[in-house]
């Protein structure tokens, strides 16, 4: 087993609209893969299918060598996620949230684990504060603490630094990179921040209209297509997807 995540021929249709169109990719242990694309490209739909909250119309998802559809509960114990649209319940405190999700993921020595996460994510002072009262940066740190509570083999991050100030965003990036270096976690990361993608990702997949148009190293890919940086390449893919589709 080489890949932590293997998506093959993934298709998702909503009625006659095809949101994800025959997407195939893999993420290896210790690898951070960026999933890029304009709004509505199918990134979140792809992530939702990998999370198991959306059933693919066709194709398969294998995580740690096992089919997600057949072994969901066992597989999901070893995955986790943080997404800008899935905040922790605001009416529980930081500690209560981590406690509830630690139980759901069957974390051993849960109280010790929570203590160490509160320390690592600088949340000790907010342990008894309701999550809804936290600032965006604190909430994101809480989301990430929850995402790492079970030391996942696969981490899915959907715009984890969206709407954060550069300092907090940098903290989040560094914390994830540190975690990957220590635990060999495979990461699938979506973002609209090209600087961030270039800084953290080993590989990027450009998605447009549900299809993967380009794949490669974010540091060398722009030059391969005659663009000065990743942002310029992103704009070209977003505006002229047909050009890249026919390459």
């Amino acid at each position: 087993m080489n890949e932590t995540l293997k998506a093959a021929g993934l298709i998702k249709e909503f009625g006659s609209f095809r949101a994800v169109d025959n997407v195939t990719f893999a993420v290896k242990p210790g690898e951070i893969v960026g999933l890029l694309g304009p709004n509505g490209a199918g990134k979140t739909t792809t992530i939702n299918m990998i999370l198991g909250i959306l059933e693919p119309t066709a194709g398969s998802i294998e995580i740690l060598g096992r089919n997600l559809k057949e072994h969901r509960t066992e597989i999901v114990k070893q995955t986790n996620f943080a997404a800008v649209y899935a905040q922790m319940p605001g009416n529980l405190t930081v500690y209560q949230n981590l406690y509830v999700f630690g139980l759901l993921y069957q974390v051993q020595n849960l109280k010790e684990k929570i203590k160490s996460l509160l320390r690592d994510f600088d949340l000790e002072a907010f342990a008894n504060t309701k999550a809804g009262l936290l600032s965006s940066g604190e909430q994101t740190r809480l989301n990430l603490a929850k995402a790492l509570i079970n030391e996942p083999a696969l981490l899915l991050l959907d715009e984890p630094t969206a709407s954060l100030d550069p300092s907090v965003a940098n903290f989040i990036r560094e914390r994830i990179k540190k975690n990957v270096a220590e635990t060999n976690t495979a990461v699938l990361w979506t973002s609209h921040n090209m600087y961030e993608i270039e800084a953290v990702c080993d590989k990027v997949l450009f998605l447009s209209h549900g299809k993967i148009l380009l794949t490669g190293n974010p540091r060398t890919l722009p030059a391969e297509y005659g663009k000065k940086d990743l942002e310029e390449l992103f704009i070209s893919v977003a505006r002229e997807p047909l050009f890249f589709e026919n390459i």
Partner: protein
Amino acid sequence: MNIARIYAVFIRQIFLYKSNPTRIVSTFLWIIIDVILWGFITKYLGSLGKDTFSFVNIILGAIILWGFMTRIEHGLMMAFLEDIWSRNFINYFASPLKIGEYLAGLVTTSITTGICGFSVMLLIAGLAFGYNIFKIGLFLLPFLLILFIFGMAMGIFVSALIFRLGPAAEWIGWPIPMVLSVFSGVFYPVSILPKFLQFFSKIIPASYVFESMRAILAGGLLFSPSASSASTGSPQAGQALTMNLFIALGLSFTYLLFVYFFFIKVYRYNLKHGTIARFNIE
């Protein structure tokens, strides 16, 4: 089924109750008002009836049992709504939590709130109106079991409807017990209803409980919704009572099984259509 995950769903609800006293007040307020209101009404009616009919025993007993069932239904639905209001579905359903475990966690919550509410009602009815529900005798246990299972089935059914139709359908859950009380013989015998409405009584498990309770407290007169007839005398009444309980239990379990599969069907529909991820905009 994993106990730790069921406990996680349950403890989240307990944290919510602990964190905000208004949740506790809402659990007890209406049932306390019901008991006090009906306690005084029955006392007044009793004074008119000159002790020929025990209004307190029969009507207040029915109110308490109905309140118990309503608490079970509302307790389960409220726990489900808490996850809607806090947009928690993605977090829950992307975790290892199985749908059966989620429902078991909601049921555990509703058992806890239902028993607490029931105890408070008994306490107030006993202290204020001298009412003792244990006059019903050992039949109280199957009565509570039937109402508990039926309340649970209603709670899961309403939650499934909201899960399918979206948060805007929340209102459906609140008046259901009130609507069912029309056919369940809570306040009056089912025989008072026109024949065509008695059909609904026959398919509502609670109606068998209230008819049986009235029969026991009134001293043997037993109306059987299943047979649409009245019977008197000990052996026949006893048989009819037992039959009533079996029918009510059978109906309750059938509904519970049906709504459990209905909830799972809705969950699978939502998985297919992406409703879990964008539930709050439905």
